[in-house]
């Protein structure tokens, strides 16, 4: 039996190293569906290395937020990674309610990024910022629906799926509610990480961009920080998804860690497949999807309570 802290730490470090792999996998899958060879799996690593060697450029209009945003937002994301259960093991720094802090740290990262975008005075960046704030405000509802689900499910307020009474085998009993919560969170994952039905990370038309429009004015090391941050964010969302779907009986073992990492990579494959098979929604339809995700998360809670026992 391995020490959980060791597993957590090694999984944490592996996450930081492997995160840039995810966009590579997604792009490879998309290329496969399109019948192309696609970019190298490690393309983002090369990009990051190249960008770090380049010179940064800042807009003359900017008053400071533009410059400050990338390091600060990456700081928020790294700190959030410290709270995440890695390899299904709860973070040694975790405490009651750490999930709330986790998502609020991501919120802070977004806040500063959006201010950085507005700092340029560019209309495109203003547009991207405006959309980002709209969608994230609605996604927040769905996210907290899932947090509520976790609380109902485990009877604890922490960022873990380990139930308070120590039970482990749930897929036989709670399959439906777990699937519902996971589905809701997957929608949030796609929306928050600017994936296709919500946003197109590869579009070249500013009018259709959301996240990409916000970072139009970055280059060099700043863009490197942002790209790395984006991949880390995707990684962390996938980790939370894994927490919802993987059985906790493998928690605290190297097998659990392997399953989690494998699951994260598999999530990237699924994301790529979904992106290849869907068209981007009209912007008017996106809020409806996010409200729908909230609805699904709440359905999960209803099912957990009424069907699978709990409330009288």
């Amino acid at each position, binding site marked *: 039996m391995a020490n959980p802290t060791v597993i957590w730490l090694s999984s944490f470090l592996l996450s930081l190293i492997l995160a840039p792999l995810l966009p590579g996998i997604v792009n490879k899958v998309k290329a496969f569906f399109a019948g192309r060879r696609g970019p190298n799996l490690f393309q983002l690593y090369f990009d990051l290395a190249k960008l770090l060697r380049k010179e940064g450029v800042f807009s003359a209009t900017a008053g400071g937020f533009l410059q400050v945003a990338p390091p600060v937002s990456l700081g928020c994301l790294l700190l959030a990674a410290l709270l995440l259960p890695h390899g299904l093991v709860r973070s040694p720094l975790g405490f009651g309610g750490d999930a709330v802090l986790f998502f609020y740290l991501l919120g802070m990262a977004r806040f500063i990024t959006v201010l950085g975008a507005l700092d340029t005075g560019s209309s495109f960046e203003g547009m991207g910022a405006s959309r980002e704030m709209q969608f994230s405000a609605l996604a927040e509802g769905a996210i907290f629906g899932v947090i509520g689900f976790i609380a109902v499910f485990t009877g604890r307020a922490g960022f873990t799926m380990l139930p308070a009474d120590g039970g482990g085998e749930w897929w036989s009993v709670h399959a*439906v509610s777990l699937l*519902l919560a996971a589905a809701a969170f997957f929608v949030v994952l796609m929306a928050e990480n600017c994936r296709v039905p919500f946003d197109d990370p590869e579009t070249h038309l500013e009018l259709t961009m959301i996240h990409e429009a916000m970072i139009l004015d970055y280059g060099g090391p700043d863009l490197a920080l942002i790209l790395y941050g984006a991949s880390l964010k995707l990684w962390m969302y996938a980790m939370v998804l894994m927490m919802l779907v993987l059985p906790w009986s493998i928690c605290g073992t190297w097998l659990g860690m392997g399953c989690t990492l494998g699951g994260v990579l598999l999530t990237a494959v699924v994301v790529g497949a979904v992106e290849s098979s869907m068209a981007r929604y009209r912007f008017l339809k996106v809020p*409806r*999807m996010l*409200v729908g995700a909230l609805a699904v998360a709440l*359905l999960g809670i209803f099912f957990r309570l009424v069907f699978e026992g709990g409330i009288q």
Partner: protein
Amino acid sequence: MTAWCEAVLAAFLLTDIMLAASSRLLHCIRIVAAQGLLLGILPLVIRSWSEVHPDQIWISLVNIGIKGVALPLLLILAMKQANVRRELEPFVGYSLSVVAVLGLTGISFWVGAQLPPPVEAGVRLAMPVAFSTMLTGLFMVMARRKAITQAIGFLIFENGITLFGTGLMIEYGLVVELGILLDVFVLVFVMGIALFQINQEFEHIDADKLNRLGDWSAPDEEDAEALPTPAEEGR
């Protein structure tokens, strides 16, 4: 047994929510078909497989045939006849509809929780879902403008009643007859839409037009709302 039954019921609720959120009629009709399919499957999974009577399989197949295939096809036909693709300006917006359906679901679950625990587990599970499906159907009838969406709403309502019957494991009886009655009603409804090409809401057929029906000889290809109003006639 329970897991599959639960999955079917969860899918049922999901279809309700999707129905509230979708504006494309074709999409709505597909959802109705999916519900028909689920309704057919439910009697087979509500009890363990060994307890299922062989006849039940046939009944299920017929059910799927009617509710999952025939009625949706008819609806699609009506949709094409009436030449409507999507619900453009519903009374209640889509996001709000989702929230409303969610609220109705919550209420149904609450009601379900208030009932005394029944003997059979399946009933306890199906009751709230059936109830919320009925409410969703009624909500659709109230919240949408297009005649065809309202027909879909009735169909959903009727699905809820059937689900109720299945959940209570009533083979024959009042519920089934009520269901058949509603089926016929929906059929007439849909045929009406198809024949008269009603692509708007009903309110356009106002009482004045109905009053004149007596001395009205049907023009060849005129649609119901193209009738001149008395005011126009006076001019």
